[in-house]
């Protein structure tokens, strides 16, 4: 399936775009998505952390992804 991933901050800079489309197996997990992204963008591995948010919540590694989920990469936050 194709997943649209929203990008912010340094991940947006690394990819050079505010959005990214990734092809994964059906019912891929968050961990599988992370593995695929790390393969495509080696610079992600340099970050302190890189979480995945699904529908505005932080997602666990074993969470299953669906095509209509709102998915975003969350590099280390620094608000406040």
């Amino acid at each position, binding site marked *: 399936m194709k997943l649209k991933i*929203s990008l*912010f*901050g*340094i991940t*947006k*800079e690394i990819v050079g775009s505010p959005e990214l489309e990734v092809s994964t197996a059906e019912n891929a997990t968050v961990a599988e998505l992370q593995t695929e992204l790390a393969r495509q963008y080696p610079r992600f591995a*340099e*970050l*302190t952390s890189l979480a995945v*948010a699904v529908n*505005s*919540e*932080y997602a666990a590694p074993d969470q299953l992804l669906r095509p209509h989920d*709102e998915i*975003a990469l*969350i*590099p*280390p*936050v*620094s*608000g*406040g």
Partner: protein
Amino acid sequence: MQIELTDQPIDVAAALAAVQDDGAGAVNTFIGTVRNQSTGKKVVRLDYEAYDKMALHQMRRVAELAREKWPMLRQVAITHRKGRLEIGDVAVVVAVSTPHRAESFAACQFIIDTIKQVVPIWKKEEYEDGSVWVAAHP
């Protein structure tokens, strides 16, 4: 509960007004402003980027979590700025009201500490000779 994300200057007085409550004797307010230096480097300005929808959702969750921990919490107001900020500008305001003072300090500190951990907002510090996304790299 008043939770806001804005690209306009933050009105601190409005946040204070939002937590006014005749049953509360204590109001604690934390204001985060842009410092002129960070880890020894001179900061020229900051750019805050937010994942708006999730940021608002997570700020709301932090306020709800605070109310679970401090059931006597009366009012909570959180306003976070985004976009370009200059030195001295207010980046975030947290205001809480409680019947007694100890809980106002504890709840306000919990909220700002947790905001800094979970709310998807990213700060880029601009120096005279470059810029860096804060905390992005080890």
